[in-house]
């Protein structure tokens, strides 16, 4: 087959893929089927069947990727044993008296919750039930009260332990330890810019967040701190283990999960039912990721046969596209597709095309990982299918309209424009810490 028609098949498959997705095909199945048919056309049925027979085992039998179920288990254990529950109370005692205090407290508590639980949906669900009713009771603006939980819940994807980073690193063949560490500063930067925005808005318009009187004695503050210690210990434990070389990034997952289980056991919060539910939940989510991941690998092989990535890299070379151009195009792709697709699925779907393009343009691949995770995060909160907005909507029910939530989120999306600009303009923000590891 000549290169032209092979590329045509490649492009036709992209169209078929999007059509299948629109017709409610599960993303893993759609991706797998399209790739299978494509490989059959390009390389014959035998090549396709051989891949199909060997790849599922070869892909899942991976030591590196064992960090995925382990980080998921760590998050499920932290959440289900209630270790994350006291975060909001503590944040409220310490930050409640600032302008927009409850919202600022919610912002940081959600970021910590998301980092430890690894799930922005679990964060939105838990923090939504805890913090939103309280903010509404103090007559906080409903748009602000709901959107802060939805937005800060996305930070778990950047702050370690991050499953998105592990998967990106595996796919792009980048050191996972460095990627995990690279997410720290961008994650903190985002949390602080969010907080600054809330404070400034509350100062300019006190009606948004009427001041409240949170008085706490020193003893109460101390008690709150004692209750909340496991979360920073867990996050720092995982980061420290990797940074200090005690654990490899892969082992850090099991280390984090075991540490969580031990802390929960010591605090007498680890019942058999909590343990079983956490195990099953982590296993299920792992299977979802691997199902899509397996198909994404088939898709990578198929695209490689079709020559589409080569076409793209040629285009980049011919057009003398700079790093900035490539990054901006990638951002556009994520913003558009992010409106319809689930973030992890979207990442696995796009990496086969974007990784060669990035490499061709000479983009630093650690920095690229941070940017891609950032773009995915933004997809969680943009209309029409910002998943976090829908989770919040499901929790607040008729109290707050979906449009109100998105109206509040517009402020956070505006901040994301600034943050993304900073991350692109100053790669050091992402690369400073990982460079120190050498």
């Amino acid at each position, binding site marked *: 087959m000549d290169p032209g028609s092979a590329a045509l098949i490649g492009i036709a498959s992209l169209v078929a893929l999007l059509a299948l997705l*629109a017709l409610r095909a599960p993303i893993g*199945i759609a991706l797998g089927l399209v790739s299978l048919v494509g490989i059959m056309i390009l390389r014959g049925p035998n090549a396709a069947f051989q891949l199909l027979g060997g790849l599922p085992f070869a892909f899942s*039998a991976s030591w590196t990727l*064992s960090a995925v179920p382990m980080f998921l288990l760590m998050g499920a254990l932290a959440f289900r044993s209630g270790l994350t529950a006291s975060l909001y109370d503590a944040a409220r005692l310490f930050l409640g008296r600032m302008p927009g205090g409850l919202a600022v407290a919610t912002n940081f508590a959600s970021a910590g919750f998301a980092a430890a639980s690894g799930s922005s949906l679990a964060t939105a669900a838990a923090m939504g039930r805890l913090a939103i009713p309280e903010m509404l009771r103090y007559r906080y603006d409903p748009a602000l009260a709901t959107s802060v939980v939805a937005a800060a819940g996305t930070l778990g994807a950047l702050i370690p332990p991050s499953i998105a980073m592990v998967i990106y690193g595996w796919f792009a063949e980048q050191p996972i330890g460095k990627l995990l560490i690279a997410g720290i500063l961008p994650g903190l930067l985002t949390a602080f810019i969010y907080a600054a925005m809330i404070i400034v808005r509350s100062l300019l318009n006190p009606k948004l967040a009427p001041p409240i009187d949170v008085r706490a004695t020193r003893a109460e503050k101390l008690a709150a701190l004692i209750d909340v210690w496991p979360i920073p210990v867990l996050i720092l434990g995982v980061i420290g283990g990797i940074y200090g070389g005690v654990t490899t990034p892969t082992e850090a997952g*099991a280390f984090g999960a075991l540490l969580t289980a031990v802390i929960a056991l010591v605090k007498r919060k680890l019942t058999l039912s909590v343990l079983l539910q956490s195990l099953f939940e982590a296993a*299920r989510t792992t299977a979802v990721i691997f199902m*899509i991941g397996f198909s994404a690998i088939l898709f990578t092989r198929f695209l490689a046969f079709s020559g589409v990535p080569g076409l793209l890299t040629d285009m980049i070379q011919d057009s003398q596209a700079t790093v900035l151009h490539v990054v901006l195009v990638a951002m556009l792709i994520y913003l558009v597709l992010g409106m319809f*697709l689930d973030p992890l699925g979207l990442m696995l779907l796009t990496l086969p095309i974007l990784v060669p393009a990035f490499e061709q343009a000479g983009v630093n691949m650690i920095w690229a990982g941070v940017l891609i995770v950032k773009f995915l995060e933004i997809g969680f909160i943009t209309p029409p299918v910002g998943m976090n907005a829908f989770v919040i909507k499901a929790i607040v029910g008729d109290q707050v309209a979906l449009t109100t939530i998105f109206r509040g989120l517009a402020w956070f999306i505006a901040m994301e424009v600034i943050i993304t600009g900073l991350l692109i303009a100053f790669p050091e923000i992402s690369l400073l810490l990982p460079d120190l590891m050498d």
Partner: protein
Amino acid sequence: MLQFLESLADRLTKVLLWMAGLAIFLMMVHVGLDIALKYFFSSPVPSTLEITTYYYMPLVALAPIAILQRERGHIVVELFTHSASKRLRSFLDGVMALLAAGFMGLMGWFSTIEAIRKTERGEFVFVTYFDLLVWPARWIVPVTAAVFVLVALLQALGDLAKAFGKPPAEAAS
């Protein structure tokens, strides 16, 4: 017959989920112990990497897929079919379940061939103190794929019956 198959699918998916849960638990303890022993006594638990790679990981990653299909836990784009009629949606879901069954059926078939080949050869890896057999783990893929196909076919039957408004027995013929 159909009822028997439904309850069989129910039981098999649950057994697979329990196996995945057990594997993920063992993985945590095994790797955790390995890190601790390496750190404190500089003597790792032998074959941690190999057992995690060849046994725990395929079990965790593959065994739950059948129960996910059964609960329709996959991620689906709802946006474009939001306003479609119930019948049309049932029809689409039925077709997608058939496609899923076809895809996983092919995967199961060709991994079975692969598994037989590796079994005959007695595939193993050499670890520090002994040979770890790898071929039994190869059978995880065919077994999970088979249960998945059973689940997906039952769903396709149910969905298409709903779409065409006939009882399941007639829709099957």
